[in-house]
């Protein structure tokens, strides 16, 4: 039996049904929030750690060049190897971290750091519900990507003229004052660039979350959704619709970011 059919990529029937399904889905807000948490805290965390480590390596100590290469290890090593190592480290049954905590009697039962959606925390009498798996994934994200922030900030720190610090010493400035009055203003430009680059890349990060949790227990971000719609459910149309949503959101972000940045530059 023979038959012919149109090539689906070449015919001209289009529909907006997929977008309607993506945007008016009950879980869409949840999906957006998760993606936003993941992106924002991952970005901010990696920049904070980047500042700390850059400030640290900018000092003179024995083994400084060695320390600089060690700090870059998480960034250059393959994500597959790192994700599975972390998974073993955090495994609830015989993972190293849980075994250590039980051995030192910090906890009694193992915590499933990658498989538990919420954990109840009591701080000062207030009960909080922390997104546990999401927090762990963000931790991995920070651990893996702070080296990029570290390198950029270190390069900037080494370019700050020494005279500024010498003048501050003459005026009797304390180390804290030197940091907040000299160092921080000098690195704001590089931090804002880093924030944008990392925000965009974290927003699209797929591998890290996919390998650690597969998008389960409250870690489903938009890129994970692209994969699940397009490949796990095999609905290429839906997957593409989610991709387009990602692109539109990114363009919006870049638009506002440059507007804000342009304003700041004008003010100065």
């Amino acid at each position, binding site marked *: 039996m023979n038959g012919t059919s149109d090539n689906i990529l070449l015919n001209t029937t289009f529909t907006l049904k997929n977008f309607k399904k993506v945007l008016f889905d009950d879980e869409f807000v949840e999906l957006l929030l998760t993606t936003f948490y993941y992106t924002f805290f991952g970005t901010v965390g990696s920049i904070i750690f980047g500042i700390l480590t850059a400030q640290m390596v900018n000092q003179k100590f024995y083994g400084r060049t060695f320390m600089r290469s060690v700090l870059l290890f998480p960034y250059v090593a393959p994500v597959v190897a790192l994700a599975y190592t972390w998974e073993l480290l955090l495994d609830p049954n015989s993972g190293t971290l849980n075994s250590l905590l039980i*051995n030192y009697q910090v906890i009694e039962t193992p915590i499933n750091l990658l498989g538990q959606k919420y954990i109840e925390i009591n701080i000062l009498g207030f009960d909080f519900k922390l997104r546990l798996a999401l927090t762990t994934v963000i931790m991995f994200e920070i651990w893996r990507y702070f080296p990029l922030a570290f390198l950029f900030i270190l390069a900037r720190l080494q370019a700050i003229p020494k005279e500024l610090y010498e003048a501050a010493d003459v005026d009797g400035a304390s*180390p804290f004052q030197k940091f907040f009055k000299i160092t921080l203003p000098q690195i704001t430009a590089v931090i804002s660039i880093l924030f944008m680059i990392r925000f965009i890349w974290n927003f699209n990060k797929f591998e890290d979350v996919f390998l650690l949790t597969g998008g389960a227990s409250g870690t489903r971000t938009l890129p994970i959704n692209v994969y699940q719609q397009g490949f796990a459910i095999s609905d290429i149309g839906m997957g593409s619709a989610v991709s387009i949503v990602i692109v539109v959101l990114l363009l919006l972000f870049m638009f506002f970011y440059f507007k804000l940045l342009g304003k700041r530059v004008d003010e100065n």
Partner: protein
Amino acid sequence: MKTKNLIFFGLISSFFLIFLVFIWKILATLQGLNIQNFNLQIVFIFGLLISFANLRIGNKIKIFYKSIIFSLIFVICDGYIIQKLPLWYNVGIFLVLYFFINKINKYSFEDLKQEHSTQVIFFDFLTLFGILFFSFVILFPFYMMLITSFKTQIALLVNPLDFSINFTQDLRDLFNSYFVIFKSYKFGKYIITSSIVSIGTVFITLFFAIPAAYAIARLNFIGKTFLSTSILIIYMFPAIVLVIPLYTIFSQLGLRNSIWGLLIVYTATTLPVAIYMLQGYFKSIPKELEEAAIMDKLSWFGIISKIIVPLSIPAISSVALYVFMIAWNEFLFSLMFLDNPNSFTLSRAIQYLSGDAETPRQYLMAGSVIVTLPVLFIFVYFEKYLVSGLTAGSVKG
């Protein structure tokens, strides 16, 4: 004022000592020692006593003898009387104490009287703390990866805290996981596929990137600014968005599950970085050299191959190393495009291995070690070239 500084110094140095002992005790626990608690109160009291005594004694006794005396007192009290731990543990704690006393020895009463001394001390100890903390947090997963690959399934389940390796056993048993993944899981084949794809990507990328970067750096043509900005935009463009269209097109063209498909995608993703990094370097080469070449009636091809390439070997090799590392580490496209085990790359093979819940974890870790080692080796060996390149072009990730 002075007492306040004194108390602050005592507190912060004892916290630092606590941290040092804490890390050593964790490492000792992981060697199979049964340490149930840290005895941090005792360490804290010792820390206070030692730092005050050190201030009081000052330079009256030589630093070498002073450190040995203090360390021995600590070791005898903590290691033998209170916890009764083996010799190697106490040697370690002795070295930890020796290090600690050498660090606090640079502070004297005069230093504490100075303005901002608390802040200076705070920053000094924060730096020390940071160095140790970050080394531990970063190196520990790598250490765990390596050790786990040498263990057996039973040993891992019986005592997950025992990280010691039995070197007395046969070499064949020690490297058993590696033998297994090469024999039954065909890792040799995956290594070859990964190498072909990565090295192939390097050559194809350089083949296109060198002329393109030269054109952007030197030539004037219509749409030049448009081209150079679009390179940056493509560089920022998310891979996850491209995956679905590429998947459908590759399926129709029959490029899925083939090395050619991967080579096309990897070249496309690494080309913008390569062009961006190379054009910056080409711009720094003096124009006069090329002008002389034009006088000699050399073609563009001659200029590139006889002048530009030989002059920019360092930049080209650092770009080549980068492209290699990106292609070697790549996971997303290999996950989407490869579903036949015969054409797997290393990353995809490890992910496939983990998909089977029965796979023992030491095999997974042995695979991880194999995929990590070449990259770390390249990175450490060529670190000088790579770090300057990282800030100049920065790797996508």
